[in-house]
C-alpha cells in the first residue's frame, strides 16, 4: 500500500475523497475487462455452426453497412415490429454480417448486460446485508422467479409468452415476502438472510413438486434451462427487455455508492450520521432486485455469478463501493461473456456437435471452486 500513500497528496480541487475514487488498479481492471469482452465477443462470433476466420469475424462485426447504418441500429435496439429482424437490414448486407448481427452479437450484448446486472446486484446485497455470502438470490429472488417459471410452464402454459414478466414478478414478490418476514420493527441483516433461506427452501420444494405435474419432457427441459440460467437463443428482443431496467439500475447503483459505503459502517453508525437506514436499505435492495429480476427475465437463474464477481472485484479495488460498483460494471460483463463462450462452444470444441450447455452450469462449475479458492487464500474474506 506504500505506493498508494503519495496519491492523496495530488488532490484535485473538488475531487471526491481527495481524488481517490479511482486509482490505477480500478483503471487496469476496467481496461482489462474491456479487452476480455472484445476478445470474447470475437471468439463467440467466429465459431458456431457457421464458421468463419478471425479476420472474417472481425470484418463482419465492424461491417460498415451495419455499424454505420442508423436504420439497422434502430431496428436492433427499438424495432419490435420488424417480424424477421434480418429483413430490416438494407440490401447488400453480406451473409456473415447478417448472421453475426442477427444471432451472435445480440447474445454478446445480452451477456454484457446480464453480467453487469448480476455483479452489481450482488455487490449491493452484500453491502445491504453486510454479509459476504449475500447474492441476488439469497433474498428469495431466485426461488421466487423459479417458482413463477415452473407455474407458468407447467400449469399455465398458454401464458408462456409472458414468462419473462412472470419470472421478474415472482422474484420481486419473493423478495417482498422475505422482507415482510424479516420485519420486526425494522430489519437486521441477519434476519434478512435467514428469512431468505427459509423462503428459498419452501419455494424450492414447491418447484420440485411442480416438476411432477409436467406433461412432457420438452417442458421439463425448458423449465430446467430457465432454472439453471441460459443465454441460448437470446436475440435482440431479449436485449430490449433487459436494456432499460439494467441501465436504470446501474445509474442508481452508481449514485447510491456513497450510501452503500455508509451502510458498511453498520446501521448504528449510519443512523447516527443521519441516514434513514431502513428506507435506504429497502431502496437499495429495490435497485438490486430490479437488476436481478431483469436478468432473470431473459437469462433465467444464473447461479454463483452475483456472489463471486463482487468478491473478485473487491480483491482488486478494495471495499470502497464507489470503486467496487464501477469495477463490477466492467468485470461482470467480461466474466459473463467468457462464461457464455464456454457454455456455447465447449461441446462444439469437443466435437460434440452444436449442442450447448446452459451458462449457469459454467458459472456454477467454475465459480464455486473459485470462491473456495478465494476463501482459502484471503484471510479476512468476511471483511466486506
Amino acid at each position, binding site marked *: 500500500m506504500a505506493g498508494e500513500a503519495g496519491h492523496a497528496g495530488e488532490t484535485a480541487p473538488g475531487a471526491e475523497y481527495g481524488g481517490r475514487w479511482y486509482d490505477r488498479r480500478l483503471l487496469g481492471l476496467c481496461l482489462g475487462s474491456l479487452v476480455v469482452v472484445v476478445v470474447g465477443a470475437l471468439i463467440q462470433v467466429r465459431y458456431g455452426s457457421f464458421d468463419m476466420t478471425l479476420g472474417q469475424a472481425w470484418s463482419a462485426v465492424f461491417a460498415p453497412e451495419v455499424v454505420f447504418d442508423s436504420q439497422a441500429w434502430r431496428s436492433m435496439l427499438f424495432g419490435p415490429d420488424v417480424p424477421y429482424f434480418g429483413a430490416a437490414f438494407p440490401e447488400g448486407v453480406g451473409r456473415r454480417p447478417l448472421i453475426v448481427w442477427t444471432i451472435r452479437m445480440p447474445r454478446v450484448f445480452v451477456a454484457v448486460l446480464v453480467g453487469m446486472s448480476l455483479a452489481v446486484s450482488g455487490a449491493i446485497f452484500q453491502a445491504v446485508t453486510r454479509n459476504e455470502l449475500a447474492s441476488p438470490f439469497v433474498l428469495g429472488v431466485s426461488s421466487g422467479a423459479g417458482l413463477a417459471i415452473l407455474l407458468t410452464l407447467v400449469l399455465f402454459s398458454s401464458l408462456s409468452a409472458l414468462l419473462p414478466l412472470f419470472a421478474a414478478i415472482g422474484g420481486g414478490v419473493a423478495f417482498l415476502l422475505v422482507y415482510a418476514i424479516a420485519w420486526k420493527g425494522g430489519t437486521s441483516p441477519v434476519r434478512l438472510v435467514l428469512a431468505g433461506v427459509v423462503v428459498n427452501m419452501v419455494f424450492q420444494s414447491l418447484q420440485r413438486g411442480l416438476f411432477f405435474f409436467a406433461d412432457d419432457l420438452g417442458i421439463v427441459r425448458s423449465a430446467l434451462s430457465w432454472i439453471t440460467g441460459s443465454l441460448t437463443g437470446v436475440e435482440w428482443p431479449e436485449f430490449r427487455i433487459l436494456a432499460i431496467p439494467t441501465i436504470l439500475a446501474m445509474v442508481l447503483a452508481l449514485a447510491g455508492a456513497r450510501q452503500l459505503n455508509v451502510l458498511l*459502517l453498520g446501521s*448504528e453508525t449510519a443512523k447516527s450520521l443521519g441516514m434513514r437506514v431502513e428506507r435506504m436499505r429497502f431502496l437499495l435492495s429495490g435497485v438490486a432486485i430490479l437488476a436481478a429480476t431483469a436478468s432473470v427475465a431473459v437469462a433465467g437463474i444464473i447461479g454463483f455469478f452475483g456472489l463471486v464477481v463482487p468478491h473478485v472485484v473487491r480483491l482488486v479495488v478494495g471495499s470502497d463501493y464507489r470503486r467496487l460498483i464501477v469495477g463490477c460494471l466492467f468485470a461482470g460483463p467480461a466474466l459473463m461473456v467468457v462464461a457464455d463462450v464456454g457454455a456455447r462452444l465447449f461441446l462444439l470444441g469437443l466435437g460434440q456437435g452444436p449442442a450447448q450447455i446452459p451458462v449457469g452450469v459454467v458459472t456454477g462449475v467454475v465459480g464455486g471452486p473459485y470462491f473456495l479458492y478465494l476463501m482459502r487464500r484471503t484471510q479476512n474474506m468476511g471483511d466486506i
Partner: protein
Amino acid sequence: MRGDQDFDAGSATDEQDDASESGVAPASDATELLGEDLAISYPATDEPVVECETVVLPAGEITAIVGPNGSGKSTILKAMANQLSPDAGRVMLDGQQVQSLGSKRLARKLGLLSQENDSPGTFTVEDLAYHGRYPHRGFFDSLSAEDHEAVDRAIALAGVDHLRDTEMANLSGGQKQLAWIAMILAQNTDVLLLDEPTTFLDLHHQLRVMEVVRTLNDEAGVTVGIVLHDVGQAARFADNIVAMCDGEPYDWGPPTDVVTEDLLAEVFQVNASVDADSDTGPHIAPHHAIDE
C-alpha cells in the same frame, strides 16, 4: 410506515436547512441536551430499562455518565441520541424535540460514537473521516471546500494526520478509535455523545481520546456527553457526573460532589477511599468489592 412520513417531511426540511445553515461553523452559543420523564425499553424487554425524570447535558460542558454494568448508562445515551425512541418522555435539543428533527438535520447538530464500530479494512482513515460529512451533503452533492476543511481539521484534532492514508485494517485498537473520533469530529456538531470510547484502549490512547474531547470542548464549546467505565477518569475529565444505578440517576453534579466514598459503596459496591483534594479531580483508591 413511519419511514415514509419521515421521508417526505424530512427531505423537505433537509433542503431548506441546507440553504440556511451551510457554511456555519459550530454555534458559539453552545447547545443543551435535556431528557425529561424518560422511560426507555428495548424491543425484547417488557419493563423499561431506564426511567429518569431529568437528565441534563449542560451547554458547553462535559458530562460523564458512569455506573456499574447494566445500570442503563449506554441506554440513556442512545435515547438522547434518538437511536432508541423512549416509551415515554422526550429529549430536547436546544428546545426542539430530537424525534421531530429530520434525521440528517439531527446529525448535523448531534453526533454519536457507538460503543462498537466496524469498518471495512480497506477504508483509509481519511475515507472514514469523509463519511462524517454525510449529513452535510445531499444525495447528489459533491464535496465542497467546507467538507475538505472540516475533514482536515477533524483529522488534525484527532491527531491522526500521520495515519491519514493508512487502511483501517493496519491500525491498532487505539488508532482505530482515534480514526472514528476523527469521523465524528468531521460531522461538526454542537453536541457530541460518546459511548465508552476509552474501554479496551491502552492507557496512552485512553488519555489521547480524553484529551481530544477536552480540547474540542475548550476550543469549540461543544457539549459532550460521555459514558465512561472508569469513575476515576470521569472524575478527572468531566465537568459534571451523572451516576446511574439500576436504571435511574442516583446522583448528579460536579465530580467533587458526586464522587464520594458513599457513592462508590452504594452504586459500585466497592469499598474505596476518595482523595477529594487531588488536583486532577477526586482521586479514587479502591480497596475491595463489597459482598452483595
